[in-house]
């Protein structure tokens, strides 16, 4: 690491302590170096400072040549003031305390005293600052501002306007972070209130975050309202598996029930944000449709059976002519045990986890799916988002790309046949005709080749490309030039495999990446899809073949592990035929679902937060989630089911814990070598790249 040059730091004094801090650092941050604190409301380290609430006023002076200090006549907002040479800061003077009291008195004159029934009570910055710095009584005897108590901004967010202290954090979040600019202030002065522009729904994929950053109980979660008091909550470090980003979350539970999901800081992944799917999409934990015990079909109904009976039944029906299809939230340990069970127990290799129209080739090289870490995307000069709707499928990647654009002048190019949220800020939009992504990629390849003066024989002319894609030559050349400037990243997701000719598209993009030195990513989509790819959960017959085999009567048994082909497979028809035809179907899952109707045996599965396990996110980061809540019934983690069953079929030593399995994975899979429980790091451990050169 480079040492900080003397010119990059300044000498300042904070409360009589001399120190050196980076030039331009905000006063509010500088005091933290001494372990001091300046109370704040509107300031948020991830957003631009605005100086609205005035809670952070401090006294500031400057050292004079004669050694004396000349104080500025007015107190200064510490959250907006950058330090400069010779600055002298006082955070603990009489005036500072008086000003804090003053601001808090002002804020409280219109704030209702409904803390006893407020969700925020107990974890409320306004409460805390009032206790530490506020006046003990109010001199306000006039009528408080009144507003509707619970105004639904959206299905998820409820606004209690009376509690709002107009700090603007929520408004700024939608402007600066999520970028959907959904919120704005209406009216002015004491009547000013945050609101959507046209009083429509707060329509955002990230609305839940404003609940967490609101420093009072004004923005509350419609789902969590009045469900618990903060001091009744227990919280556990969790992971979100709604998509493959691997966001870190807090799983807040009360009396063993999950009641709330909040963002947990992981600078490498989600910083502190969550998307709404992640924050509000964990209904299944407490769903009334939750499967709680093993069931066996008897005629047209299910009867509860013991695990032992279920195992016996399965062992009797599954053999070499059986297969398994896997969903996206099974842990690395579960996937590994499944592989073992099928191979060693049933003598079958037919397992797959892929659900796209075209299946990503089994031989695809590991690191190719993620050359750019999520965090690195914000520092790219150019990001080409190709054929992906990031906000929907990779929300946190979307936020990073936007952050780069917003703060670091990353140029974002979006190439897609449909509109996406990133269009709104893309520096360049290549919107092509549906089904023409492959032609677009090849057109781009030609543009790169021409720019590099390499051979362009065999390429379609730009004219033809424009005909098929409707994208102009000039735009292609512009993108090529951007990529050639270096420090670029091409971002695709596995959804490209649902498009026309993905193999050709990806081949062209790979060549572009090789030619321009750009990083190339085809991020996996589902919660632990990257883990499944890395572990090679795609042996024997593939998904399409397995379903066809079932439909043709070539397979005797099918095991669905947390997956419902009727919703996951592109052809519902095929899925129906397969489930209809297969003689013996095991459905193992969290919730009742349609596929269950075809099952002979139903097994309840534990949700991810109900047991130990590791998951691999899109960038190949292995993260561990420990048990947070208890399974509501008799469910078991997938790995335990597989390992218990295997012991029945092929007597041996069963696995006792997820940790043990992870050790085994590490020993057998070089990519996971560093991912044992004792070595897993706070921010997760990236998979070891096992292939050095992808282009060989």
């Amino acid at each position, binding site marked *: 690491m480079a040492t900080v040059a003397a010119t990059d730091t300044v000498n300042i004094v904070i409360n009589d302590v001399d120190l050196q801090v980076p030039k331009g650092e905000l006063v509010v941050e500088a005091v933290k170096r001494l372990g001091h604190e300046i109370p704040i409301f509107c300031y948020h380290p991830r957003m631009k400072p605005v100086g609205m609430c*005035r809670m952070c006023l401090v006294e500031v002076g400057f050292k004079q040549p004669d050694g004396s200090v000349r104080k500025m006549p007015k107190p200064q907002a510490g959250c907006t003031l950058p330090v400069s040479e010779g600055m002298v800061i006082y955070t603990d003077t009489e005036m500072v305390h008086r000003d804090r009291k003053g601001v808090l008195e002002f804020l409280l004159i219109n704030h209702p005293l409904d803390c006893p029934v407020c969700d925020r009570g107990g974890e409320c910055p306004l409460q805390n600052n009032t206790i530490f710095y506020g006046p003990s009584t109010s001199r306000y005897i006039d009528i408080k501002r009144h507003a509707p108590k619970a105004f639904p901004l959206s299905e998820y967010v409820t606004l209690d306007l009376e509690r709002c202290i107009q700090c603007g954090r929520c408004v700024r979040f939608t402007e600066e972070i999520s970028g959907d600019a959904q919120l704005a202030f209406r009216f002015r002065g004491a009547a000013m209130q945050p609101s959507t522009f046209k009083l429509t729904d707060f329509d955002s994929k990230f609305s839940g975050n404003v609940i967490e950053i609101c420093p009072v109980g004004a923005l509350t979660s419609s789902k969590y309202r009045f469900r618990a008091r903060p001091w009744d909550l227990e919280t556990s470090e969790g992971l979100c598996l709604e998509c493959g980003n691997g966001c870190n979350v807090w799983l807040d539970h009360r009396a063993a029930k999950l009641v709330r999901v909040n963002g947990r800081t992981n600078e490498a992944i989600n910083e502190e944000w969550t998307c709404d799917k992640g924050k509000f999409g964990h209904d299944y934990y407490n769903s009334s449709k939750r499967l709680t015990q093993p069931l066996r079909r008897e005629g047209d109904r299910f009867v509860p059976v013991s695990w032992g009976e279920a195992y016996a039944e399965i062992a009797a029906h599954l053999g070499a002519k059986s297969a398994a299809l896997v969903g996206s939230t099974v842990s690395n340990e579960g996937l590994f045990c499944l592989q073992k069970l099928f191979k060693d127990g049933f003598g079958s290799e037919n397992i797959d986890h892929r659900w796209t129209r075209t299946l990503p080739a089994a031989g695809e090289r590991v690191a190719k799916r993620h050359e750019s870490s999520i965090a690195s995307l914000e520092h790219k000069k150019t990001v080409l988002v190709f054929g992906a709707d990031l906000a929907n499928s990779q929300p946190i990647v979307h936020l990073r790309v936007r952050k780069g654009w917003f703060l670091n002048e990353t140029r974002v190019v979006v190439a897609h046949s449909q509109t996406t949220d990133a269009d709104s800020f893309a520096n360049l939009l290549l919107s092509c005709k549906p089904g023409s992504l492959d032609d677009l990629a090849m057109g781009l390849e030609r543009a790169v080749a021409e720019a590099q003066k390499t051979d362009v024989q065999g390429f379609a002319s730009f004219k033809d490309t424009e005909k098929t894609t409707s994208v102009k030559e000039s735009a292609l050349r512009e993108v090529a030039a951007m990529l050639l400037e270096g420090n670029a990243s091409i971002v695709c997701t596995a959804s490209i495999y649902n498009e026309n000719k993905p193999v050709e598209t990806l081949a062209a993009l790979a060549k572009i990446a090789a030619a321009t030195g750009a990083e190339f990513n085809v991020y996996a989509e589902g919660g632990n899809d990257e883990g499944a790819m890395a572990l090679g959960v795609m042996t024997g017959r593939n998904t399409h073949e397995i379903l066809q085999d079932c439909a043709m009567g070539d397979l005797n048994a099918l095991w669905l592990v947390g997956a419902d082909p009727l919703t996951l497979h592109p052809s519902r028809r095929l899925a129906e035929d397969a489930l209809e035809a297969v003689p013996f179907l095991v459905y193992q899952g969290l919730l009742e679902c349609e596929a269950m109707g075809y099952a002979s045996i139903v097994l309840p599965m534990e949700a991810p937060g109900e047991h130990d396990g590791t998951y691999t996110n899109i960038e190949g980061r292995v993260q561990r989630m420990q048990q947070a809540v208890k399974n509501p019934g008799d469910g078991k983690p997938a790995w335990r089911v597989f390992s218990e069953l295997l012991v029945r079929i092929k007597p041996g030593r069963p696995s006792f814990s997820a940790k043990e399995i992870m050790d085994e994975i590490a020993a057998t899979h070089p990519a996971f070598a560093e991912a044992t429980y004792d070595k897993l790091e706070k921010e997760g451990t990236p998979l070891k790249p096992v292939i050095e050169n992808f282009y060989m």
Partner: protein
Amino acid sequence: MAEYKLLLEHSDDTAYRTLDGYRKKGGYKALEKAVKMERQAIIDEVKASGLRGRGGAGFPTWIKWNGLPKEKVGKKHYVVCNADEGEPGTFKDKQLMEETPFLLVEGMTIAGFATQGDAGFIYIRGEFIDAAKALRAAIDEAYAAGLLGKNILGSGRDFDLYIHMGAGSYECGEESALMSSLMGERGMPRLKFPHAPLPTISGLWDSPTLINNVETYTCVPFIVNKGGEWYQTLGAATKNSRGTKIFSVSGHVNKPGNYEIEFGTTLNELLEMSGGMKGGKLKACVPGGSSVPIIDAEMCGRAVLGYEEMSDVKSMVGSGGCMFLNEHTCIVSFIWRTAMFYAQESCGKCTPCREGTKWMLQIMERIVAGNGQPGDKELLLEVCSQIDGRSFCGLGDAAAWPVAAAIRVFPEEFDYFIANGKSMVKSSKDLMLVP
């Protein structure tokens, strides 16, 4: 001293509002001269004149002009005119724009030359339709005559001038809020130096921006024409106020209106010009627009109109909105009305101003309704001190000063109203300045 008509000399002459008439009276001589001058020479002329901002703060104009980068660094330079005249009691810019529009256009063009401005924006208060029309006509004529647009007067330099109408917010007269509004954002103030770069470095669209008041720009043609040396002889009797200043006189006087005077004229002389008091003896005066501290008759007697001189009576020249109040005025009611204005106009950005102005209004409302509580006067002073200097921009200060000053100068009126539930001023009912 008597009236000194420099800016307003030809204000009655309707021909002066046309390019021809304006030129006949010497208009555009200054620009012709300026195009041949070095940029720095123009700025030096402004420096020599001692001109200070006429919008209210009295900041030396040349420092702003001098603050823009001398060499362009790939960014446009903008020249902005603050014509959002909203300070209660002030109506000088309105007259200047309606009756001497070319002075403003010429002044801004010169400013553009001096600071390498590419474009100018006149941000006009939304209600000033007539002013906007007059300026529109003037700008159109100037374009047609090659005095705006490309290659002005064959100088090879370009300058475009645009009009932007405000939408009715006092706060948008605050220069940084004005710029927010001009850029299409909500009219809220932006961070200021030392929290952010000065507008002369990073203003409109992060580009170097010069922003001055209407009256300030209209002074410029005279300064360039007759020289800064000449201009600074006006007001030489004062400590540091040079030139002329237009005062908008209103209230209980016989001839309310705009009066242009040389700095150093006394407040009494101004009162005489405007025909003396009407309906009763002089009781108090708010000399510089509603936000400046009120002064009583005794202070009026010794007030000299100059930036430093006015602080001798603990008040200010401000924007020159001079309101004379006669003996039948209830100061408490007057301040109630003032407080109402600021509570309505607070933009809401910062806590002290947003909550404090509303609270002050509530207390004042209570007092004038006869429900004042013991301690309300002290509470008002406390609230003022919690706003003053703590708010994000000057609006908070502007809301606190008049209240604090009124209590300081007329404490007995507040005490009486609070104790007795009615005004101590007889017959104040008829003349009370209530809405």
